[in-house]
């Protein structure tokens, strides 16, 4: 399925530990490993400068990624069903707590309408069915111009806009 780059859809990632923008890993050069084999493989197989990606599940213990997290170019989070929202929290924690600045990719069963939320919690790319075009993604992303809570993106919630515009209830 085609991978959509979401990182251009917003102006940067919020991260208290790393202020760098996300870099989308190129799928043609990235080798995906099972997390079970990650610890052993990562040091043995990885050449200096070589990119590596990992696919994790919605319930993967993120602490297990901590030792290698700086070497991961992509963390792909698997959605087994669109209703299973655990992946949203996984991404949020990777950005906010681990300060992970690489590509976080949503893969699996997802709805186009979820893209706006994916971006806000820190995903920087998404794998969507082939019939969905870049224009479709763009339309969903632009649908809502205001947000009401701080998340892992750089969008400012309404209450902070109210403060800066001095708007007290127009």
């Amino acid at each position, binding site marked *: 399925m085609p991978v959509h780059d979401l990182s251009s859809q917003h102006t940067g990632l919020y991260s208290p530990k790393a202020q760098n923008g996300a870099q989308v890993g190129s799928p043609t050069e990235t080798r995906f490993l099972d997390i079970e084999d990650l610890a052993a493989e990562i040091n043995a197989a990885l050449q200096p400068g070589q990119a590596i990606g990992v696919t994790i599940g919605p319930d993967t213990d993120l602490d297990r990624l901590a030792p290698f997290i700086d070497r991961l170019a992509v963390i792909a989070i698997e959605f087994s069903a669109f209703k299973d929202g*655990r992946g949203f929290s996984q991404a949020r924690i990777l950005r906010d707590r681990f300060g992970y600045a690489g590509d976080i990719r949503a893969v699996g069963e997802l709805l186009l309408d979820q893209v706006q939320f994916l971006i806000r919690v820190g995903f920087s790319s998404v794998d969507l069915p082939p019939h969905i075009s870049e224009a479709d993604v763009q339309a969903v992303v632009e649908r809502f111009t205001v*947000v009401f*809570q701080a998340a892992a993106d750089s969008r400012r919630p309404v209450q902070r806009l109210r403060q800066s515009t001095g708007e007290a209830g*127009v």
Partner: protein
Amino acid sequence: MYEYDTFDQTLINQRVNEFRDQVKRRLSGELTEEQFRPLRLLNGLYLQLHAYMLRVAIPYGTLSSEQMRALAHVARTYDKGYGHFTTRQNIQYNWIRLEDAPDLLYDLAAAQLHGIQTSGNVIRNVTADHFAGATADELDDPRIYAELIRQWSTLHPEFSFLPRKFKIAVTGAEEDRAAVRFHDIGLILRRNGDGEIGFEVIAGGGMGRTPVVGPTIRKFLPKQHLQSYLEAILRVYNRYGRRDNIYKARIKILVRDLGTDAFTKEVEAEWEAIDKAHVDHELHEEHRVRKMFAPPAFVTSTAKEVPSQVSPPDFENWRKTNTHAHKQSGYAIVTVSLKPYGGIPGDATAEQMDLIADLAERFSFGEIRVSHEQNLILPHVEQRNLIELWTVLSKAGLGTANAGLITDIIACPGLDYCSLANARSIPVSQRISERFSALQRQHDIGELKVKISGCINACGHHHAGHIGILGVDRKGEEFYQITLGGSGAEDAEIGKIIGPGFSYDEIVDAVEQIVHVYLDLRQPGEPFLNFYRRVGAEPFKERLYARA
């Protein structure tokens, strides 16, 4: 009252546009019903037994006269001329056509109303004490915090695909009218030893097939950390709540399975790790919202102006049950009963809604509340205007003097509307209401909360009823189980099943027998619930099942 600014309005306008597009795609066949379902549910549109049902959010149960008129307009234009106020302080319309739904939401948006997050596995419309801002026993106005929660939870990107629905209730009063211990999260405003305001946080309460009185997980949370603490609870729930079984997916099951202490530990650890300055609300926003909930311009010292003429006894009965002490002397909080004898609990016609909108403007600063007991509240009425108000209400069938009495019944829509129901609720409620319609008798019985659910999902809150009635299906026949001793108030308790169920024909007699036991054996002035707690189930069992 809270009023939208351009930001609030922008979001709901964009939401209407989104939904219009989705409906268009559905009607053209581009979307299948399966694909459309999760999208329509996010806007409160259900497919019920006979038609689409649309649920409109009334945040913390507060409405302006203008908003009430918009609800009347919807009832008249898109439904059969009436609407149904629910136990979650919302309103439902039961006869909506899919092709009309976008226009309906467009009309509502002009009155700052919407259907966002009134269904689906999301943070639902937040509820609060329906006497907020008017009652004397209040530490602070819970609507301020409920409004902050409304904003924070609106289209929350991380918590829009939870294991199951999620309900938050807030109260600032000593008397719990918001049933906070029966919510996924309940918040009670408290003051700590240093005089600071914050919340007692309750998590994991609920009704449904596994009723739980929610435990307190934090005695005092400083109010400025409301949002970060809610995020911590929601994140723990989103990550660890069960998703394999719909009946075990609510947070109450997670709290129960982990144990309150272990759950609390998880939440506290999560909260520790959150960047609070990033997530918590801005103080200036709290001030902005607080200003909008400033008390209206009360007229002082009107107490002596009560008309000297002798008031009719019917009015005195109404005043006894349907008015409540106001924090401002000379004022009263008025409950407008939506429980006429033999009527459908919570139903109001478009004409009644318009009338209440007018009366609110004349007598209550244009403010209306919806109570979770399915009545409407005029929160700020001058006592000298009570007779006039009552006279107008009575003429419109809205003057029933039964607030808190046995005929003030909560009932879910039941098998008459709902695709989940096993049995009818509304006709049972109507028959009980007719049986006990003699007002003198009702007053003699005193406070008695009867709550009826048409299935185990407990939308009629039967677990919290002094007398709870649960409709079940027994070999294709409607049967009704009775529970006694429940309470949704500050002394929250789950009612206990008294014994075998009763048929549709027997259930009203059974309720009457229960009332007789109470009347025969109570001590002077002893309310039903106290009586039950003193004597237990035995005398009731004897009377109900002796002949069997």
